[in-house]
């Protein structure tokens, strides 16, 4: 069925995208952007109906990378799903590990030792910094700044990935957290290396900002484009930097206080206009706040065990029940919903993917914009297809 044949409907009171009437001159054109478009971050398609340059309808098409991660996880043990979570949002495997570990810990009422909590915070914030830096790099890449900002971001990311590799053994597929703690302990030299990298990060963010923040081309392309209103953002379950760029003060680290986030002082950056530029700026400011959290955590990290001695590695069978655990992942709210029936495999295992749900409003943001801006708006959402399609 062609997109042009579908009848757009706008129902009063519903948060549906507005109907844009074509101006009647010329024909409407239907374009399939993707699945092999360089701007789609993977295999993803947007069916766009254009009136001249203006977008009148847009439908995202998913599923090219679908592997039914949830079904696989329901057929295997709780522990065996941990390495699979790395592959959801492969930029942020450590946050995914944490979200899954958190949900299982809720399900069985497992405590996590102090030192492990600090390690988790350090790794999660490092992950956030490298994710935001690369996201901004990709956004600029899509704007046509081919190479430079992305390579600067990757240069910094490389240092962080080296830290991950020397601790967990792998750069991206870390598979590091366990139910009730972490797999290996951080060593003194590792902490020293981390402190050194973190000390260099403010200079990098300054450099990045000097390169970009006041660039007139960036401002012209981003300001006032792809606006998302706060009411719609909340109603459409948008999360993460995108929600905060619309001015909604909602950061799960502050709301749920999961882990030990209530011990750290940090601010939640908020946007004003909800446009692409605000999303860019919120990410830059979040990097700065993350550096602050890292400095506090690296200073205070206590000694002690990294694994609860009562935690079981083999023969792990939670009692029947269910739990939903969520964290503030770099891309938004990442949640895991688990139902146990007392067997070694979860009865139901669900991932709440922030990347997929943040795309709900893609059409709303793109309608009436030029087709060239669709690429930018899409880039500012920050998705990873491994998580969208699961």
């Amino acid at each position, binding site marked *: 069925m062609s997109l042009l044949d579908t009848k757009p409907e706008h*129902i009063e009171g519903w948060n549906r995208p507005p109907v844009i009437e074509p101006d009647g001159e010329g024909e409407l054109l239907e374009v399939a952007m993707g699945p092999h478009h360089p701007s789609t971050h993977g295999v993803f398609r947007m069916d766009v109906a254009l009136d001249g340059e203006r977008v009148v309808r847009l439908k995202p098409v998913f599923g090219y990378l679908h592997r039914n991660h949830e079904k696989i996880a329901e057929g295997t043990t709780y522990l065996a799903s941990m390495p699979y979570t790395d592959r959801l949002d492969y930029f942020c495997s450590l946050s995914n590990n944490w979200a899954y570990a958190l949900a299982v810990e809720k399900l069985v009422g497992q405590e996590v030792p102090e030192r492990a909590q600090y390690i988790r915070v350090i790794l999660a914030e490092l992950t956030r910094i490298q994710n935001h830096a690369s996201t901004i790099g990709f956004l600029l890449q899509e704007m046509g700044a081919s190479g430079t900002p992305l390579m600067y971001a990757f240069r910094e990311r490389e240092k962080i990935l080296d830290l991950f590799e020397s601790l967990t053994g792998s750069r991206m597929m870390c598979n590091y957290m366990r139910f009730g703690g972490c797999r290996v302990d951080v060593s003194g030299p590792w902490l020293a290396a981390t402190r050194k990298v973190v000390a260099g990060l403010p200079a990098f963010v300054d450099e990045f900002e000097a390169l970009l923040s006041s660039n007139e081309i960036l401002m012209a392309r981003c300001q006032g484009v792809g606006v998302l209103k706060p009411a719609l953002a909340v109603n459409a*379950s948008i999360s993460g930097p995108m929600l905060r760029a619309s001015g909604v003060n909602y950061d799960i680290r502050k709301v749920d206080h999961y882990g030990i986030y209530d011990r750290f002082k940090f601010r939640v950056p908020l946007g004003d206009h909800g446009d692409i530029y605000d999303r860019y700026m919120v990410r830059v400011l979040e990097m700065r706040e993350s550096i602050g959290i890292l400095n506090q955590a690296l200073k205070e990290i206590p000694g002690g065990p990294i694994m609860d001695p009562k935690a079981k590695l083999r023969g792990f069978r939670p009692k029947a029940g269910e739990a939903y655990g969520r964290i503030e992942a770099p891309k938004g709210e990442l949640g895991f*919903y688990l139902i146990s029936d007392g067997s070694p495999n979860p009865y139901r295992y669900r991932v*709440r993917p922030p990347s*997929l749900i943040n795309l709900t409003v893609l059409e709303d943001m793109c309608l009436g914009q030029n087709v060239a801006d669709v690429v930018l708006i899409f880039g500012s959402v920050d998705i990873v297809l491994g998580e969208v399609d699961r």
Partner: protein
Amino acid sequence: MRTVEEIKAAIEAAVPDAGVTLVMNPSPAAQHSLLLQPEKAVAVATFLRDSPELAFDYLSNVTGVDWLDKEIAEKVKVTKSVTKTVDGVEQTVDETVEETQKRVEPGYLEAVYHLYSVALKDGPLVIRMRTANRTDKIEMPSLTPVWRGAEFQEREVFDLYGIVFAGHPDLRRILMWDGFKDHPMRKDYVEPDDFEYEPTAHDEVLKRAQERQASRD
């Protein structure tokens, strides 16, 4: 945070005949949930979103769960008339005997919604809806008109579990392709026999692959 019982009472006060049931969660997470009647679900959901004291304006997660038909064997006490010879006289006596009876509890599909409140920084509240069975009565109302965030997630539940959300603006498959039959997340889903040869030279995959290869030759 209000307890689930208080929320239930508030719903019952606001929506007449809401018919909300409390479903307890025995795990240490203790996230108890409310089971809604499909007929009243939209009214209850709108109340949950709009009531200023509750203000569950943020729908975090929507998912399906498949509960298969369960065969329950239970011991029942049955009273039977038995003819017996007592003291040489034949009598009919009522006697209670224990018997194992099998009963099939019909399975159902369930949709689970996790709500939070951005305004009050509150949550989670878990609400559920159930279909009557797993085959033909699989409709329930869509909550997308209340929370737009359910749009893609309900499509996913429809795609992978086959729950039909009445009133969803765009209920199509989302992850599987359009011509696909069946719903892969159901517990009784049978994988199609169209695997490729895998180099894993040891499990039954190899045997099946060789058989298929032989039938092709």
